């Protein structure tokens, strides 16, 4: 399988705090990769390094390389707008803008300069279809996104990212604010989307990683301890620390 993203010796500091140390991780194209580990281990930080969302944090310092299709995105010449269009992000809590359903999905296209509703509508439709929301919402495109259920809101947030046609979807605990049934359906959606996108998901929930991910990475205290096919990580880990974590000894 082809490598979509590769981090090489990635170090990240928030001020004096060493949040990531020497992370070497390869993420394969068109599959789901899960990053697991206890709270504060740096998994969200690692995820946010992949489209440079950490740049927004004051006092952050990064060293090493993050290659997207072989090109280092940490280079100063990187066009951040284009990078984040290629590498989209879904956040922990469903966070639609206080706008209509249509305006939420069209937001990314509009910031990239497409203003004509006739051009936006087909993309809004296909984006909502890809998250199975179109049938529910096609008559409610102009109502506020805040009136939707949490699950619908999270699907809408995924549609909003899908609308700008990204290559990679980063998901930061996308189900942690949802009930188990909604979680199951969002997981189905992730599996359905995996064919078209490279998906990286951070999760607290080991069962979730086991259910959806082809590849799993285990992090502890800012280090990448082990990475491999999900079945290996859960059934046959090479590192003692991974074994302790997946068997529930701590975390």
């Amino acid at each position, binding site marked *: 399988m082809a490598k979509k993203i590769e981090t090489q010796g990635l170090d990240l500091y928030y001020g004096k705090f060493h949040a990531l140390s020497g992370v070497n991780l390869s993420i394969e194209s068109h599959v789901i990769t899960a990053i697991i580990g206890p709270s504060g281990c740096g998994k969200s930080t690692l995820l946010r390094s992949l489209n440079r969302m950490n740049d*927004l944090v004051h006092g952050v310092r990064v060293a090493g390389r993050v290659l997207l299709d072989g090109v280092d995105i940490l280079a100063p010449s990187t066009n951040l*707008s284009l990078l984040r269009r290629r590498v989209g992000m879904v956040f922990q809590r469903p*966070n639609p803008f*206080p*706008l209509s359903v249509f305006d939420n999905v069209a*937001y990314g296209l509009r*910031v*990239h300069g497409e203003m004509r509703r006739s051009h936006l509508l087909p993309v809004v439709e296909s984006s909502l279809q890809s998250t199975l929301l179109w049938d529910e919402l096609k008559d409610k495109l102009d109502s*506020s996104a805040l009136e939707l259920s949490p699950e619908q809101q999270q699907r809408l947030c995924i549609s*909003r990212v899908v609308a700008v046609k990204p290559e990679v979807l980063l998901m930061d605990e996308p189900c942690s604010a949802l009930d188990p049934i909604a979680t199951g359906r969002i997981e189905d959606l992730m599996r359905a989307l995996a064919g078209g996108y490279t998906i990286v998901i951070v999760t607290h929930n080991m069962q979730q990683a086991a259910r959806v991910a082809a590849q799993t990475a285990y992090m502890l205290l800012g280090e990448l301890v082990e990475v491999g096919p999900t079945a290996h990580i859960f059934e046959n880990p090479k590192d003692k620390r991974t074994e302790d974590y997946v068997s529930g000894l701590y975390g």
Partner: protein
Amino acid sequence: MRVSPAIIQRIAVVFMWALAAITFAVLVFILAYVLLHGLPHVTWSFLTQSPANMGRAGGIFPMILGTFLVSGLSVLVAAPVGVATAIYLTEYTHEGRMTAVIRFGADCLAGVPSIIFGLFGFVFFAITLRMGLSVLSGSLTLALMVLPTIIRTSEEAIRAVPDTYRQVSYGLGSTRWQMVLYVVLRSAIPGISTGIVLSLGRCISETAAVMLTAGSALRLPRSLFDSSRTLALHFYILSREGISMANAYATASVLIIAILALNLLAYWLMRKFVAKVGR
């Protein structure tokens, strides 16, 4: 003897209810007093004619226009500057010594009595910049006076916008300016407009500062360089100099109704906006 908490609770409720009632009663009393004395004299010709005999007779049309011009222009100047400053302070800088100094300065300015602004406006705009006693001098002075309020209320409104909106917007590849324009300002508009409407109300009811800068000419202002008397100042002069108490109360009634209407309009606009975006 210990008094039971239930009785203390009852006493507290009665006490707070009484205080609230007193506040409300004072408000109603003042409004009713002014309106009862003034409204009978508010006629169509009072609203549309120029004053005669120093305001003993005739109407207040030039003052209505003057008030409209002076306060409208001052908000037109202060709102963009104030909102831009607030955006700069919240979205474009990190908290540091400079933002602290700007904020401290704005808070100090907000507490300066309006007559000091009047004096400054008189010396700076009217004399040094040779604008004279004019609508322009008056509105620029009032703009300075309300600027701190607009900055601080806009800042609060912008700060209340959830950070996740900003992150999502960046995550979709927007620039900072697009994020500010499409997400932050849209969500902050109700709060920002509240600050602007409050400022407009303060401009309309300001007396001391406009007396020193816009002057008290009775004629209709023909340009921004003409002196003009505002409603609040007209009321002050009519009552202070004993010219006509009836017309003074009538002017006050018009002023009160205008401010009431303004607040209702702002409230209605905000409700409409909020209903539209669903918050």
